[in-house]
Each structure stands twice: as C-alpha cells, then as structure tokens.
C-alpha cells in the first residue's frame, strides 16, 4: 500500500484553480519529489497532504489517514517542514526542540537529533541568531522530532548557499536511510536529480509526468547529444540510418547528432567499424532541466 496516495486532487482559491487534477502515489521508504515551476500548485498540494487545507475535490490519504478528518493522528506520524514557517525569535534551539517534542507520543531524543543536524553547538542560541542554513536545519529537526514515518519537506533549500544546500541534501539522505518516507517539494533540478527516487512534474495544477529523474530526462527525446569532427568523410545517410539518431546537423566540418540515450554507443561502434576517429568529441546528456523545460512548455501550448 502506498504511504501517500493523492487521487485527482482539486483545489481552488476564489475561483482560481491552484490544483486542477493531481494524482500520484508515494511508496514506503522512497524520496519522492514534487517538481514544478513557481505557482504550479506544489505548495497547495503539500498543504492538502499536511492537513492544512481541505481539498475541493479528489482524495488524499497519508498512511491510510484522511489528513483533514484524522489531522491529530496524522501530525503524530507525519513530520512537516513548511515554507515560510517561522518560530518565536527569543526561544532557544533546545527549548524549541523540547517544546515540540512534548507534543508527541514518542518523541525522538533531542541531543542526538541536534548532533545529527549539526546544531549541537547552537542548542543554547536563540532562533533569531541562527543563520538561514541553521534555521532550515532546525526546521528539519522539528519535522523529525516526533519520530515520524513520513516527512514532508517544502522548498527545503531555497535561500541557502550552495554549501549549506549540499549539507542539507546529505541530511535528507540520512533521513531516508532510517526508513522514513520523504516527500520533497522543490524547483531545483539539481536537488531533484540528486535526491529523488521518483518525481512528479507538476505544471499549472496538473501532473505532467511521474518518473525517475533519469526517466524524465529521457522523455524529452533528446536523450543524448554529441558533436565531433570525423577523421574521414562520413555520409549523412549512414548516420541517419541508425535508429538511435534523431537529427543531424553539420557545421564547419563538425557533425552534431541528437538522439536517444543509446546514441553515443551506437555512433561510436559505427565509427569503430569504419575506423574513423571522432576528433573533438563532446557529449551532452539531456538533463532533468531539459525535461522540465520541454514538458512544462508543452503544457503551456495546450
């Protein structure tokens, strides 16, 4: 049974559709990403999953619970880190942790949790004094303090410097290693690519695709792209005859090929058979970025 099941979720604000029809399922123990441009409906989806908002249509189940009706039970087992959720400025880190720990039936131990999140030496610091990265880590610590089975992390690394971002990614991987299912909302491709087992790409309130990051990248058609200068003349037709090649362009004696994820392998074996050397060979892997752009652009055309 999936840990999170979202089925045809629909939500409007004053007649404006924020989430049109979103469906996906998150399995036990995976890091599932929700990726999409700003205003795509990611946060609204997460808020419906977290029990903060009531859906206007469709259904949401988390660990078999209805997030609205079973809100109290849900919050015991689902840890949530929200975008733009602050804390009292004059409360110290340890005090904040102890406060939230007291709300749960089986809270985690605070000292080890703070150590794991690199906040042990900040335990006596007031919230106001923390850096952006430390505040984010505290937000993660608070999402984990109830020993949750599922954590929802919304725009976790927004506003963090690259170093803090990488550190935070490491933390998310640690969380998954102890068997916690992670729902990660992001608009960073790199983050999604690095962390997520599977992704739902959301655009304009709809799920455009659900796949692994690599699978999504392949979907764009431009699985791989290569450029080279052949050491001996090579017919276009020969290359285009390969099923892996989608398009070919010549420029200044160089050949540029776009094709599937097996493009490089197919072309290099052809060149080897013909004993042609590929000078100045450059290979580009289609990234999630390409997939994101092409899939969300496509949605805009419709």
């Amino acid at each position: 049974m999936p840990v999170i099941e979202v089925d045809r979720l629909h939500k409007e604000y004053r007649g404006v559709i924020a989430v049109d029809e979103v469906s996906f399922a998150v399995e036990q123990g995976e890091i599932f990403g929700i990726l999409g441009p700003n205003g795509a409906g990611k946060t609204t989806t997460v808020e419906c999953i977290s029990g903060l908002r009531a859906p206007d249509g469709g259904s949401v189940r988390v660990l078999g619970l209805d997030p609205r009706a079973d809100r109290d039970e849900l919050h015991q087992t689902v840890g949530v880190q929200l975008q733009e959720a602050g804390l009292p400025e004059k409360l110290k880190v340890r005090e904040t942790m102890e406060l939230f720990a007291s709300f749960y039936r089986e809270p985690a131990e605070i000292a080890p949790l703070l150590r794991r999140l690199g906040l042990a030496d900040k335990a006596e610091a007031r919230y106001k004094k923390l850096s952006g990265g430390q505040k984010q880590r505290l937000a993660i610590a608070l999402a984990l303090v109830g020993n949750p089975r599922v954590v929802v992390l919304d725009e976790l690394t927004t506003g963090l410097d690259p170093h803090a971002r990488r550190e935070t990614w490491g933390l998310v991987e640690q969380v998954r290693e102890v068997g916690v299912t992670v729902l990660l909302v992001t608009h960073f491709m790199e983050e999604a690519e690095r962390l997520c087992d599977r992704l739902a790409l959301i655009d304009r309130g709809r799920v455009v695709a659900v796949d692994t990051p690599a699978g999504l990248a392949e979907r764009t058609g431009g699985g791989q792209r290569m450029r080279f200068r052949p050491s001996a003349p090579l017919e276009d037709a020969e290359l285009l005859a390969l099923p892996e090649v989608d398009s070919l362009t010549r420029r200044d004696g160089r050949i540029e090929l776009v094709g599937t994820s097996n493009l490089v392998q197919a072309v290099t074996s052809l060149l080897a058979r013909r004993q042609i050397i590929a000078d100045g060979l450059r290979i580009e892997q289609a990234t999630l970025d390409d997939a994101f752009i092409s899939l969300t652009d496509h949605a805009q055309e419709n």
Partner: protein
Amino acid sequence: MSATTASPLSADVRVSPRRRITARGFRALMGMHVKLFSREPGVAIIVLVPIVLMVIFGSIPGTKKPQADLGGRSVLDVYVPTIAAMVPLMIACTALPTAMASFRERNALRRFSVSPVLPGGMLAALVAVLSSMALVGVLIVVVLGLAVFGAHAPTNLGAVISAFVLGFTAVMAVGMIAAARATSSGMATGMGTPFMILNFFFSGLYVPVAQLPHAFQTIGEFVPFGAVMDAWSGEGILWQHLAVLAGYTVFGGFLSAKLFRWE
C-alpha cells in the same frame, strides 16, 4: 466464572482519547509563553508599574484621610482598585494582542499548525499564562493597598471578585479582537491602546471617578473597568455592572472568533 474469561488482551486495546493536546504539551506551551514574556522587556512594566504606583500612593502621608469629595473615602481607598485594574487592562490590551501578532508576523502559527498542537492550543496556553499573570498582579496590588497601607476593604467581597473576574474576561475578549487581526506588534499596540486609555480614564486613573461630571460617570458604567470600579465602591446597581461586563465578554468573544485569522 464465565465472566472472568475475557481475554487479558482486551485490557490492552488502546482507548486512544485522540486529544488534540496533551497535558504535557499544554504545560510546555505555557512554559514557552512564560519564557518569551520574561525575555520581553515591555512585560516587566505590566507587573512593576502598578506595584510601584501602589507603593508610592501608599507612602504619601495625606492619601489616607477621608475626603468629602470622594464620598468620605480616602484617596488611597479610591486608587487601590484603579491601580489594580491597570494589570488586567495592560495584559488584555497590549500583552495579548502583541504576543499573538508577533506569532502571526513570523508565521510561527503555521509551524504549530502542522504539529499535533493546533494553533488553538497555543492560544489557550497564552490566555492561561496571561490570566495567571493578571491574577498575581491584581492580588499583589490589592494586598499591598489593603494589608500593608491600610486602605479600606470593599464591603461586598463577592461582588468585587465577580466584577474583577468578569472585567478581566470582558477586556480580554475585546483585546482578543485586536489579537485576532493584528499582523504586527505595532499594529496590535495601536489597536489595543485606545481601549486601554478609555478604561484607564473611566477607572479613575487620571481623575477619580467621583470627581468626574455626572454624565461621564454614567458613561463610565458602560465601560468595562468603569463598571468594575462601581462594583468595588458599591455604586449603582451591581447586576447592571455584571451584565455590562458579561455583554462585553460575549460580544468580544463572538466578534474575535468571527474575525480570527491564524496566518
């Protein structure tokens, strides 16, 4: 006996009360509010100013003489309830709205709303802490005035206690309207202060109520702490004062519940 054969497991069936907030969580929330208040310099004023005022009034020699224009009571007699009233007024009109506003301002309520404690629990803990503060403050001022400086105790103790309690709920309910809407501490202060000054005036903080023109005295009966003062001094009709206070409580409570926004 067959009645004893019930499976021992039946005792283990979890009868989950599904309480929104545990006693432990509620105590922790109250502890948080106490800590936050103790770190807020403005809050000391709420407790200290009335106590200092009481000590000053009690120490001035002339304040204990009965005066004809105060209806035979001494200045001290008149000012004990007035100074005591400052505590609940400042708590309800400034501490409550600013505390709520600062939580709202920082989006901290969003953080609570995804924990097992809903924001309502946080608000309840805040009200509990403020009520205890008000109770302690009023008791200190009254005990100082009556026991230490020898002011005359009110005759109808039941009326006075019920008037003070209802007076507190009345101004808390009105303060809650500001707490319901204010999105910054400054806005909260701005909303709460005029009502506080109005109550200060009619509780006789600036001029003793007995020296106010008759029309003002009549108006004062319909201002929460004007009504409380009358109940203390035994003026007017007690049930009318209590009804006024209950009216504010119900009206303020209803309106603030209607207007309340968590974010």
